[in-house]
């Protein structure tokens, strides 16, 4: 079913805050998880609300994206918590959570996944400049109008919100690279989808139930009937084209930059082995990472042996080993959220490389992360007859 919310005070943010209030007031859920400013800082984090009081600080559609909430929902659902939760997730957060449920690190039971046509995200530097001391509602509303009324082929409507950001050379959007190349910036596999693209945001916002649970949830809220915005499909097709060509350009650039091992080493030369990219990665799922174990506490003499072999050895060591291993471990499940780039203190565009590699890796297994709960992780299953090309010594002499 499709329901609708009437826009309040011409403010999408206020309208959605009212929607969350209604969820709590009607008891449709005992708690809602929504990105919210913490204190009066401009930064947002997913916050779990059980009372309506603090909801005025929430920014459900802002460009701040510094925590992928997928693993946060995993924390909330890995064992039954006793209450029903509604969680507000970006599409890539939904994908990440679905991947984690496949690893039994979370469960969809007792949780309503509400996802939306994506508000996109700014890079950290741009966000800081954009948000200043704290984004006011007007700035956020301008952002929302810009994102949802831009189709890629049309120029943004209305004035530019905040600084224009950096010209990326790939697209004119100052959104982060991961967002520019995202192949599904709309909800897939959520319980409720909020349909914003192509919508007349000053009037109504449409919500679509995509599962039985989602339908029942919307029915319980007794909202007005709604329908998918007429131009949404066209806008989606436009976005797909624009993002597709942005990906092609980025992919080509990354491959050019890293086509040999020494180029890859140069790409990661600023890496300080802080492993932040792993900490923020929503699908880097191991409870204990091998790179935290003593397996890599090399014998001191070993470093001298390496230096002896190559004439030099960079320290800290095992940088490429770490990144390549991560690529192999999460290559098929990378949801393309771009958190690794946001978290890198050395400004390495980690996500560019991981997204580029993962698109190729998952294609080999015809796998799309988050698309379907029933689709198993490629490395967790096998068939008896498959990949015969992988086996053997190549051409027969």
């Amino acid at each position, binding site marked *: 079913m499709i329901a609708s919310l009437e826009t309040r005070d011409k403010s999408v943010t206020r309208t959605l805050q009212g929607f969350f209030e209604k969820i709590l007031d009607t008891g449709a859920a005992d708690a809602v998880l929504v990105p919210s400013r913490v204190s009066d800082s401009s930064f947002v984090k997913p916050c779990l609300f059980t009372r309506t009081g603090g909801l005025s600080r929430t920014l459900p559609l802002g460009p701040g994206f510094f925590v992928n909430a997928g693993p946060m929902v995993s924390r909330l659902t890995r064992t039954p918590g006793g209450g029903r939760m509604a969680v507000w997730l970006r599409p890539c957060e939904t994908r990440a959570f679905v991947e984690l449920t496949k690893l039994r690190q979370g469960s969809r039971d007792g949780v309503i996944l509400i996802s939306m046509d994506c508000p996109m995200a700014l890079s950290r530097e741009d966000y800081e400049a954009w948000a200043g001391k704290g984004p006011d509602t007007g700035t956020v509303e301008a952002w929302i109008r810009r994102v949802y009324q831009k189709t890629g082929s049309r120029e943004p409507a209305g004035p530019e919100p905040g600084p224009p950001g950096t010209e990326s050379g790939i697209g004119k959007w100052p959104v982060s690279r991961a967002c520019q190349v995202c192949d599904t910036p709309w909800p897939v596999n959520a319980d409720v989808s909020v349909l914003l693209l192509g919508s007349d945001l000053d009037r109504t916002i449409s919500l679509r139930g995509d599962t039985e649970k989602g339908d029942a949830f919307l029915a319980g809220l007794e909202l007005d009937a709604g329908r998918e915005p007429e131009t949404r499909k066209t806008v989606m097709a436009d976005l797909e084209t624009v993002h597709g060509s942005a990906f092609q350009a980025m992919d080509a650039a990354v491959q050019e930059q890293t086509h040999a091992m020494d180029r890859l080493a140069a790409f990661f030369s600023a890496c300080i082995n802080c492993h932040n990219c792993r900490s923020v990665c929503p699908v880097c799922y191991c409870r204990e990472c091998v790179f935290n174990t003593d397996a890599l506490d090399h014998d001191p003499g070993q470093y001298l042996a390496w230096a002896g072999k190559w004439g030099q050895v960079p320290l800290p060591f095992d940088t*490429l*080993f770490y990144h390549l291993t991560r690529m192999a471990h999460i290559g098929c499940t990378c949801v393309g959220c771009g958190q690794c780039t946001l978290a890198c203190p050395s400004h390495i565009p980690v996500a560019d490389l991981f997204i580029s590699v993962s698109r190729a890796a998952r294609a080999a297994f015809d796998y799309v992360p988050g698309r379907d709960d029933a689709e198993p992780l490629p490395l967790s299953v096998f068939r*008896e007859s498959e990949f015969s090309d992988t086996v*053997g010594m190549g051409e027969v002499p």
Partner: protein
Amino acid sequence: MPETVMNTDPVSAASPGSQGPAAVGTDVFEPVIIAFVCNWCTYTAADLAGTSRLSYPDNVRLVRVMCTGMVDTQYVIKAFLEGADAVLVSGCHPGDCHYINGNYKARRRITLLRQILPRFGIDAARLRLTWIGASDGIEFARTMNRFVTQIKELGPCQTRLHAVI
């Protein structure tokens, strides 16, 4: 008995007095090939090749593992980063795995690595997966000879020449 290499440095791991890999910069390129072989099939085949007096080049260093299903992708990555010119993973034929299905899992992992590594200049031909049964001593020696020939033609892997770790 095949030689099981414990030293993680493939270049210095050449046994003394052998015709092991020449140092970088000399005329003859002797590749270093790390072979992860399963205890039950390919390692036994290597043993059989030895007792049958079949010869194969000592460029190949065997690392005995209980099953190809335990060869994590990082083993292969580490071998390349340490300067190996090629890596072989070899185990039981489909249906023969001592642990029922480890070889099928290995096939998926190697498929994944063959997607990833070539993007960074490591030719897919440097990473092979084969099935060699316990009684295939002849096949083992033939495969090793063929692999060494192939890698000699390909030349040294970049990681052998420069530290890129």
